[in-house]
């Protein structure tokens, strides 16, 4: 061994009840090295890292820090050993300022809260090349700011080993590049970095070595320079996987859903969607791209009837659906599945079983006052079989399923209702390759059946491969609607940040209005 490892884990095992999350895992990382930890959902990556950060204790195996065997019993122990973790779900107190969030774990200053802590934090952040406002409250921060704060926090505590759990899942391309810049700087200054991610291109870009886990087992560690996407996928999934997303060509129908001049306000009363026009045809997938908070959520909610609109029209098959209650919109065949950042927040009741979640949408169709569990169970069984959901039974609480399976349950239920328009936001959020492709297949099947799909996504590569057209939003305005096969990632990136505005470049030809739809000619729409 020519160089000492910053962290070395040997033979780590950890079980939850009868489920083995980690089986005999070896892992090591040197100072000044970036190790990518790769694996599908439920392969035990986060569990393994939580044993370094003191959240879990290993059942067996040993951990060495700088060559010395240690036992990490609590996050405090981890902190003392110089291990800092940036969790996937940020560990920040929303109502505190940036400085107070760092000050929480500080044991250098005295017992009183002094005003100078703001300056201390600002100076310290500057030293590491970050620009944060120490007085800003976390609830006012964008996702990337929160992440920066988390990184500053672990650096402030003097971490030399930094673990990042899917840091890029919520970032735009530009923000990801910025983050990678930071990671490279930290690497240069001798920090050991472990980064968990699903995204193979990022693994290849940032890491020095890649460790792969599959179903809780350690597969191997390879040098990044000596591998490629195909090989990594095979290690991860255990078999060959086709990495191209299918985009079947389907005969498009007339527009199913047309949005005209729509304006929506967000919870704070600011304009979230600003005079937006677009339409969705049957048999096509319209992607919606944009940085977080550009109005996607409000748009989805408005279409589903969950959010009142300020002005404009939403026309579904010739009927204006503005002002209809969510149930009436549902009955018209518009379904919405929104996967929020915490995955469970909207659409499913986490502690209820799959059967009961199936029934949520059709509890009122049963005859008589009693719940009709029988059909619900049958449907649950069918969805489980159709979408290959991994679950002990139909009666398992949804909360206990892994992320991919939860999302399949949600999508499965929506599709079961036989919609003609599907609004889906982040359906593959946080999913591994296998599950993501399963979801793409589900959407493509629906597309072939003539369903119109609005796909709010975050991974531009996926959107370029899957969608027929992509609409880009920036601050609630449509920057343009482009054909997915004719555009590039760079162009989309520019539009997302507002640097390129196709809509207003050609004022005479407003993008998004269904000129070629025959709705106007047939006069199906009465103004």
């Amino acid at each position, binding site marked *: 061994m020519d160089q000492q490892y910053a962290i070395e884990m040997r033979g780590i095992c950890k079980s*939850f009840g009868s489920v083995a999350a980690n089986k005999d895992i070896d892992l090591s990382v040197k100072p000044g090295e970036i190790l990518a930890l790769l694996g599908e959902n439920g392969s035990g990556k986060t569990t393994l890292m939580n044993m370094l*950060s003191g*959240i*879990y204790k290993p059942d067996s195996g040993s951990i060495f820090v700088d060559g010395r065997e240690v036992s990490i019993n*609590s*996050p*405090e122990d981890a*902190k003392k050993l110089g291990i800092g*973790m940036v*969790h996937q779900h*940020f*560990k*920040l*107190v*929303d*109502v*505190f300022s940036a400085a*107070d*969030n760092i*000050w*929480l*774990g*500080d044991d250098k*200053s*005295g*017992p*009183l*809260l002094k005003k100078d802590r703001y300056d201390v934090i600002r100076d310290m952040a500057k030293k590491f090349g970050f620009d944060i406002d120490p007085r800003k409250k976390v*609830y006012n921060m964008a996702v990337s700011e929160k992440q920066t704060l988390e990184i500053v*926090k672990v650096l402030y*505590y003097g971490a030399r080993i930094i673990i990042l759990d899917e840091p890029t899942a919520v970032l735009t391309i530009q923000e990801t590049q910025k983050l990678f810049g930071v990671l490279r700087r930290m690497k240069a200054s001798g920090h050991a970095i472990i980064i968990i991610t699903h995204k193979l291109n990022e693994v290849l870009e940032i890491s020095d070595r890649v460790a792969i886990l599959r179903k809780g087992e350690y597969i191997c560690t390879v040098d990044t320079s000596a591998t490629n996407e195909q090989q990594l996928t095979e290690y991860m999934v255990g078999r060959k996987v086709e990495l191209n997303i299918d985009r079947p060509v389907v005969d498009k129908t007339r527009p199913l859903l047309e949005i005209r001049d729509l304006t929506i306000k967000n919870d704070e009363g600011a304009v979230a969607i600003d005079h937006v026009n677009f339409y969705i045809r049957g048999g096509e997938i319209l992607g919606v791209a944009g940085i977080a908070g550009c109005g996607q959520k409000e748009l989805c909610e408005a279409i589903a009837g969950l959010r009142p609109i300020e002005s404009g029209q939403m026309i579904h098959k010739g009927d204006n659906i503005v002002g209809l209650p969510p149930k009436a919109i549902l009955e018209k065949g518009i379904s919405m599945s929104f996967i929020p950042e915490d995955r469970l927040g909207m659409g499913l009741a986490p502690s209820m079983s799959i059967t009961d979640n199936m029934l949520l949408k059709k509890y009122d169709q049963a005859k008589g006052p009693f719940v009709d569990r029988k059909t619900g169970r049958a449907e649950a069984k069918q969805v489980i079989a159709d979408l290959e959901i991994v679950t002990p039974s139909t009666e398992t609480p949804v909360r206990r399923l892994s992320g991919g399976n939860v999302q399949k349950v949600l999508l499965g239920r929506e599709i079961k209702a036989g919609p003609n328009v599907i609004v889906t936001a982040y359906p593959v959020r946080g999913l591994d390759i296998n599950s993501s492709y399963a979801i793409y297949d589900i959407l493509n099947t629906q597309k072939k059946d003539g369903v119109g799909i609005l796909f709010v996504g975050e991974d531009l590569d996926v959107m370029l491969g899957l969608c027929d057209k992509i609409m880009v939003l920036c601050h609630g305005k449509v920057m343009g609607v482009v054909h997915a096969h004719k555009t590039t990632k760079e162009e989309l990136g520019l539009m997302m940040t507002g640097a390129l505005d196709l809509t207003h470049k050609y004022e005479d030809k407003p993008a998004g209005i269904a000129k070629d739809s025959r709705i106007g000619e047939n006069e199906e729409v009465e103004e």
Partner: protein
Amino acid sequence: MNDPINVLTLFLFNIVLINIPLLYGTVGEIVVEKSGSLDLGVEGTMAVGAMFGYLAGCAANSLAVGLLVSFLTAGLCGLLFAVLTVSFQANQNVTGLTITTFGLGLYFFVGKGLGERWPAMTGSAALVNGFSAFELPLLSKVPVAGKVFFSQNILVYLGIAIAVLVWWYLNHTKTGLRLRAVGENPGAADSVGVNILLYKYVHLIAGSGIMGLGGFYMALNMSGSFEGSNCWINGYGWIAIALVIFANWNPVLAILGTLVFGFFNTLQIYSGALAGAFPGGLGWLNAVPAQLFKALPFIITAIVLIASSVRKREGSGQPAALGLNYFREER
């Protein structure tokens, strides 16, 4: 006696005198809730503090012993709550209600068990003297306000001092910052090395102890006369829980909240006198049925709860993790 200014002064004086236990209860509950625990056992905790504080105070003929024992015995209620909800992860609402039932039961059990041997407060000079007015120099000479605020007993000053102290502790010390973090997001606090278990235990015990002081105050205010049918605390514990919300989890605002609630609470006693002293302006008070005055504090409580539920999250001082048990390995 019929001098209108005198009547008004006396009315205001009694608002403070009668309702200070609400402040103790509220500040105690704020300390508890800031650690993320929703303790509905205030009523029972105060009853336990009142009973044992009074008995110990009488036995030792000492105000300090009474205070100490009421703090400690009520603190034991907090400890019980902590063991059940923090260590054993029991449901907080159920545990709180259990403590109320348990505390009131213990109160009547001990009181009735003593029967003839019940000590009268007149037998303990230290308690009588300790609860008599203590006029602050100079300040007590100010007209009206001097009598209302600066001629009260020591326990009134103590209650206000505790409220201000707790406010300072929460906002200006690092321990206070960590406590608030535990109540807001225990996962975040845990991840930076804050000992969640310790913070919850300590603040449940301390907060419950402060509630117990309020109970002791009520015992003295009732002159230590035990009735088999009615507890000294008389619903104050429940109002305190609502006052926490009214005060937006701010101990200093709790002083104001106590006075506002106290106003309505005391109105039932003084409505006749006020109507007599101001026949022109307040004569209509005589026409209001007494039952309405009795119900008034509780009606106000209901209105406050409704109004505060409309309040926006960002301005609210409610800890985000209030009522949720924390388990580090939860997935």
